[in-house]
């Protein structure tokens, strides 16, 4: 300063030499610094967007309406009960303008149509991000002060899941993710507490290993542990990436700890030699493919996924065990989804022999295990405990571990600062979750989570379901949520109930809210069908729908079993909505029948989905109606025509809002369709 004054004394003096001038200069500096705030405000991003919005709408036909809707300045949506403070609508000005549906330029696009009023919930409820921010960067990205960036559109359905705990038609990805979460084994190790109380229950049922040595060999266990998908491409068990030694020791322990079970191996008598030519047809007739898949020559799986894949079952199952299983699976596993077919000894032998041929001679060719040493068995037990095998499987001598893996109840709100990312990964929560599902062991050495063989679509679906498990979903007021309907624990009573359990009816049918949706819901079957038809059907099931490939198997029931089942169904499974005997099943006037026929073919054109005359009609969607008069009660037909969804929710037959007299005439026509005279004569 000294130097400056010496060199240019005049400048300092010019500016501050005179007190008045000093005052003036300081005032100007003060004024300028005061102007920074309003200037920043004036040149703010959101003002720019509002200006360009106004200039955009100026050229449009409906400019006056849009102008009237427009409100300048910072806009805010505030919902304290939801924790929502959103200023997004400051820049996203045209969100609710239906007429802007042709605009593709952001931030002025109209919001897609959703079932909610945008104002009612705000934006961050679904999109995440920082709602209070008024700059593009801060609102959309994660910053030092705000961890949650915008949720990528790929996972947007997770936001629906915060409130909607039951499946929604419009969120297929979320529904699939939740299904996978419950059925892929995740919840055997990870606890997921539900906001409505309780925990998410697994829907899969990994087999008990208590008697594993009766069922299969140590060599097969070894090969399976090494790579489950090499045995069956559809195998649900993940790959634990075990070393040869570890797989050897675990197999040694499992075989060592297995307890023999009486009755789970069957020595077939010499008389019942398998009949190789009858094997495939018996497999087909029994509709094994309804539940079990087999890989065909092209490598595609053909068949259902309720039971395990049988492509190489001959490599796995010991012959005596397989025969016992086919004969009565409930001896080995009382809770199995497999029905107890009443096969003759000859049939058991034939089917077991046929399945034994489904083998790959190379599969176990390279597996040679020396007899297990006590050290190996002890090490195997240690590994079984460490990997948490007992989380899924019942194993003799090992307790099911509690909280084996981290709880996932609020995984969707996990702070990014607590996550460890793999190099090259985007630092966002969805990327972390997806990465964990894709390659769980890549995150650190020594992690135990096994490698799943999930497709990319499945990983996206699971990530979506997991993101829905967040702080908000746990803390929302109950009035705002749509709870899931808990699975019914319905159990039919008595002798018939035991029989239905033995035949595993619930593996395909749904009754009173319990069971699968593979086959029709039979909750009101007693009101629906006629007794003689039901007896015939249970004796010899035939398909009602021409285009169906998965069918009801023939269980070879004894006459008294059929009577027990029929009695129970006809008595208990009746709807309170109407009396099944309120209309006669025959004796309708010919004129009514003729009128009904005309209505059937002309006014209501039922032949587009149903077949009455097999020569002329072709409809493939609904059941064939050639014998409907022998199958259904007239009162059921009438009430079904009046409102199909009332009797079977979700059925695709539309409600025709049919006048009573039309429904009566159609009932007369349909009730007169008694089927072939041969059947009549038989009766």
């Amino acid at each position, binding site marked *: 300063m000294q130097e400056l004054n010496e060199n240019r004394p005049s400048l300092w003096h010019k500016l501050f030499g005179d007190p008045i001038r000093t005052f003036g200069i300081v005032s100007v500096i003060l004024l300028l610094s005061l102007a920074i705030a309003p200037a920043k405000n004036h*040149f703010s*991003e959101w003002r*720019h967007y509002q200006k*360009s919005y106004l200039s955009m709408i100026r*050229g*449009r*036909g*409906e*400019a006056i309406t849009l102008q009237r809707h427009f409100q300048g300045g910072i806009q805010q949506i505030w919902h304290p009960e939801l924790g929502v403070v959103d200023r997004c609508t400051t820049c996203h000005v045209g969100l609710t303008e239906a*007429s802007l*549906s*042709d605009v*593709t*330029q*952001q*931030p002025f*696009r109209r919001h*897609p*149509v*959703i*079932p909610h009023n945008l104002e009612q919930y705000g934006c961050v409820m679904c999109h995440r991000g920082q709602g209070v921010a008024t*700059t*593009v*960067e*801060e609102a*959309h990205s994660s910053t030092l002060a705000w961890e949650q960036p915008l949720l*990528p*559109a*790929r*996972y*947007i*359905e997770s936001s629906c899941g915060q409130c909607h705990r039951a499946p929604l*038609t*419009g*969120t*297929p*990805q979320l529904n699939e993710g939740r299904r996978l979460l419950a059925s892929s084994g995740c919840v055997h190790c990870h606890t997921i507490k539900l906001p409505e109380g309780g925990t998410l229950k697994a829907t899969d049922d990994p087999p008990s290993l208590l008697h594993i040595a009766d069922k299969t060999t140590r060599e097969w266990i070894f090969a399976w542990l090494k790579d489950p998908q090499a045995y069956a491409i559809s195998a649900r068990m993940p790959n634990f990436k075990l070393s040869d030694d570890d797989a050897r020791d675990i197999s040694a322990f499992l075989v060592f700890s297995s307890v023999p079970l009486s009755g789970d191996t069957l020595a077939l008598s010499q008389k019942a030699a398998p009949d190789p030519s009858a094997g495939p047809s018996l497999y087909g007739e029994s509709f094994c493919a309804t539940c079990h898949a087999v890989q065909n020559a092209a490598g595609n799986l053909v068949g259902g996924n309720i039971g395990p894949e049988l492509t190489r079952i001959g490599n796995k199952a010991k012959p005596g065990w397989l025969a016992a299983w086919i004969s009565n699976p409930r001896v080995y596993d009382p809770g199995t989804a497999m029905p107890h077919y009443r096969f003759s000894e000859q049939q058991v032998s034939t089917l077991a022999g046929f399945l034994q041929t489904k083998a790959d001679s190379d599969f176990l060719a390279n597996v040679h295990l020396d007899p297990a040493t006590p050290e190996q068995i002890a090490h195997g037990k240690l590994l079984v405990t460490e990997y948490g095998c007992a989380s899924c499987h019942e194993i003799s001598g090992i307790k099911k571990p509690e909280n084996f893996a981290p709880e996932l109840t609020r995984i969707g709100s996990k702070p990014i600062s607590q996550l460890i990312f793999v190099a090259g990964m985007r630092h966002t929560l969805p990327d972390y979750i997806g990465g964990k599902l894709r390659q769980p062991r890549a995150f650190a050495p020594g992690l135990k989570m096994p490698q799943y063989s999930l497709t*990319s*679509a499945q990983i*996206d679906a699971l990530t979506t379901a997991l993101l829905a498990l967040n702080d908000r979903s746990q803390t929302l007021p109950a009035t705002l949520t749509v709870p899931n309907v808990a699975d019914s624990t319905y159990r039919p009573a008595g002798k018939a109930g035991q029989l239905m359990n033995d035949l595993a009816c619930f593996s395909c049918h749904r009754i009173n809210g319990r069971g699968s949706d593979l086959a029709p819901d039979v909750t009101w079957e007693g009101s629906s069908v006629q007794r003689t038809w039901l007896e015939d059907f249970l004796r010899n099931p035939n398909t009602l729908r021409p*285009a169906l*490939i998965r069918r009801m198997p023939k269980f070879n029931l004894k006459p008294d079993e059929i009577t027990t089942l029929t009695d129970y169904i006809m008595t208990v499974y009746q709807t309170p909505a109407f009396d099944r005997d309120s209309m006669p099943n025959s004796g309708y006037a010919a004129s009514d029948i003729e009128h009904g026929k005309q209505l059937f073919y*002309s*006014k*209501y*054109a039922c*032949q*587009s*989905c149903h077949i009455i005359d097999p020569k002329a009609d*072709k*409809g*493939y*969607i609904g059941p064939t109606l050639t014998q409907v008069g022998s199958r259904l009660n007239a009162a059921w037909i009438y009430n079904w025509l009046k409102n199909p*969804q009332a009797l079977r929710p979700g059925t*695709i037959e*539309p*409600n*025709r*809002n049919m006048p009573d007299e039309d429904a009566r005439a159609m009932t007369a026509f349909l009730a007169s369709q008694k089927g072939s005279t041969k059947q009549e004569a038989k009766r």
Partner: protein
Amino acid sequence: MRRAMPFGLLCLSVMSSGCARKAASAPPPTAYGSAIVEVSGGKQSAPVGARLEQPVVVQVNDDQGNAVAGALVSFHGLNGVEFDPPAGPTDSSGQFTTNVSLGGMAGRYQIIASTLTKSQKQATVEIEEIALDYQEVLGRELSEQYCSRCHNPESTPERVSNYDNLEVKPHPFAEGETLNKMSDADLAAIVSHGGPALNKSPLMPPYGYTLSTPDVQALIAYIRMISDPPYQVSGTYSKK
């Protein structure tokens, strides 16, 4: 404090913030073709941001139309389209396969596959894909449940089509030539009240007592979105 950005740049950055990641460094091509064609995977629809169900496959051909192996193909798309992988050489049958995820906004997406020709020019092919918003996804799900058995002529073992059984053939939902000429109100009338509502076949039953009004609107939104040629809203939004 955030750095202030010039307004123009800001605009651009918002528009292109989700721009496709540039082709990763791929090995140099070992062969060159002269044309690139779509093999499969075009005209699919998927929810916004989701992966398309089927991969997109393109093929590089030479002057004679024979497939060229080892030619470098790269994919480009705007507005957040992602490719996995974004670039690579064609396989032994001259084809290159990539999985496509569409961007976060509903609508039609043009993706471009290109390959370098011998004369260092780009041969390109444009492929169209469709991203569905919530309403359209709902429409698609409802259509799968209630409509496609008759309206989709394709049969699979799991779901046999009823199309061939019908005397009067239903219109597949992508059939824009017919459906684009019908107004939303007419479509809603047919779905809700059946074919006879517009003097059409009674083989089309009414769904107005089964589906809710928003469901019917969702179906129409879906039909409009997948229409080929695209459905143009006419008259409503014209300038003064």
